């Protein structure tokens, strides 16, 4: 794993730590930020230490991310992001969950895509899954979920 790979996450963490520290020491009333000041100081020191080690190429912990992993991850992360941050509220929980589940299954199921049986199997699994979720959350737990364009 190269040095840049470690520098990016530890750099982001250090930047967040710097921002937290800045807010903690500049916001008023000071009494409300007494504990955040304590924490943010330790946060910043440890983050700078980690970033320094990454810059010097001394960071060894963690397996890192390969390009192959990133490209495998990308479609799933995209579907999950759209599902959580947009579709669940806009389309409705159950509709969005069905679509996301089916999309993820289609993206990661190794079965051949050119077979009608594969698509019917995926559809049946999705219907079964959403039926269980509806039974569990709507009927048993009576959780009110946001209604969207579809349901």
């Amino acid at each position, binding site marked *: 794993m190269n040095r840049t*790979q*470690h520098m990016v*996450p*530890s750099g982001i*963490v250090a930047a967040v730590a710097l921002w*937290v520290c800045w807010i903690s020491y500049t916001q008023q*009333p000071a*009494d*409300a*930020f*007494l*504990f*955040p000041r*304590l*924490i943010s100081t*330790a*946060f910043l020191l*440890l983050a700078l*230490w*980690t970033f320094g*080690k990454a810059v010097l190429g001394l*960071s*060894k*912990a*963690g*397996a*890192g*991310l390969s390009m*192959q992993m*990133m*490209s*495998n*991850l990308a479609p*799933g*992360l995209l579907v*999950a*992001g759209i*599902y*959580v*941050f947009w579709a*669940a*509220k806009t389309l409705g*929980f159950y509709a969005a*969950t069905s679509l*996301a*589940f089916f999309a*993820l*299954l289609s*993206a*990661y*199921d*190794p079965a051949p895509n050119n077979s009608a049986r594969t698509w019917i199997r995926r559809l049946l699994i999705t219907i079964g*899954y959403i039926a269980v*979720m509806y039974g569990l*959350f709507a009927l048993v*737990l009576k*959780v*009110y*979920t*946001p209604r969207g364009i579809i349901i």
Partner: protein
Amino acid sequence: MEFLYYFGEVFTPVSMLLLVGGTVGGLILGATPGLSPTMAVALLIPFTFHLKPVHGLILLGAAYTSTVAGGAVSAILLKIPGAPANIATTLDGHEMAKRGQGAKALQLAFLSSLVGGVFGVLLLIFLTPLLAQWALAFGPSHLFWLAILGVTVIGSLDSGSVVKGLLSGCIGMWLATIGYDDMQGVQRFIFHDALGGGVNIIAALIGLFAIPQVLTMFAKGRHDDSIEAIKVQTHPIGEAIREVFKRSKALIIGTLSGSFIGLIPGVGGQIAGLVAYDQTKKFSSEKEKFGTGHSEGVIAAEAANNAMVGPSLVPLLTLSIPGSPTAAVLLGGLLIHGIFPGSDLFDNHPDVAWPFINSMLIGQILMCAFGIYVASFAAKIAQVPQSIMAAAVLGLAVFGSFSVQQSMGDVYVMMALGTMMYFLERYGFSAAPLVLGLILGPIAESNYIQGSLIAGATDGQFAYFFGGALNLLLIGVVVLSIGYSVFVEMRSRRALA
């Protein structure tokens, strides 16, 4: 013997139903590779909202106990540990299964889990009130240091790098300060509407433990992950019972080492199983058989990882310091029901605390009974393709985090924290200290503020927080745990070089 008085609550129809449901569900979840006990308990917490606190905790306790034991199923039949705690079980358990002794290995695993688990819960029953009495002497400064100790111990032991572990703890403590300040109602770090009420602990727990596992499954891509489980043939249970008692040395070493390791905050079942395996091998007269399918290896490892469960809750219930990441999630489960562990837990909520502990005792017996019969069925479920598992867990995480407060904000926080944690974990950061920081942060802050007020009226901050034998002892343990972890890290780095 106060606990005997509360046994009745465990035998009510609702409690028994939850115990059985939690045990069977936990066995199946535990047997599923990729679903850790911590994640299973975190995903179950939203279901406990609709239950009385005692029933919610009975469900979580049953799931905790049986997921650890259920991990043995996939360890033995698939050679994939269901949880890190079952790594040592694969060494001999799978070899036994390959020789056609899968049923025997499973029976030995569940029987030794039962013995280890019951011993561990008995320790929990008898040690907890003693420690709780001692904890009565704790003032704000001690509680502040205890909270710091909880974060630093797990931060330094449960991470690939001590600095990154401690940094994760700091991130968690900072996240806990987001929202409105309790004392003055001042807004702190609210940079998005979703954070108005602060970071919801349950949504965060689900995100931090479930989403990284979902993304890990995605990162493997489209691949055929079908695993062939070894077929289980019948084996007389009486013979397995005789074998367990014949191998009593392995059982005793496993049980004692697991219980002792469970009492040390931050040291998990993974270490318990491996230490017990190693020690049993050292004391065995058949050392050469270890690794080739020797029953002592299975007995020692499984007795240890279940013996660890009860004692890991001792520091949680008395001092609010979780002994393991799963215990940290249980702490979240206690807090959302308004139950604060500590010295007065058994005075204020004996009707919740004792039935919960007692249910874990009964849960061990159910785990063993169901485990032996559910094992082959659980192994089939463990073969569910990861594409289905990942999509199902994602949906469950979204519904679970939403149902906490019926808030989309919690779902956003869950997803954002989970995604962040996945990337951080790839670079050596760890979720357990972050969760500990998030849970113990408010305890540390309230005691720090209270302590500062007392210090202002007495000897000053330094004398109050750094004076007195108990403060110095706690600070000493904090320094010692960090120092020890740094030493271990440097030694292993030197060994690698």
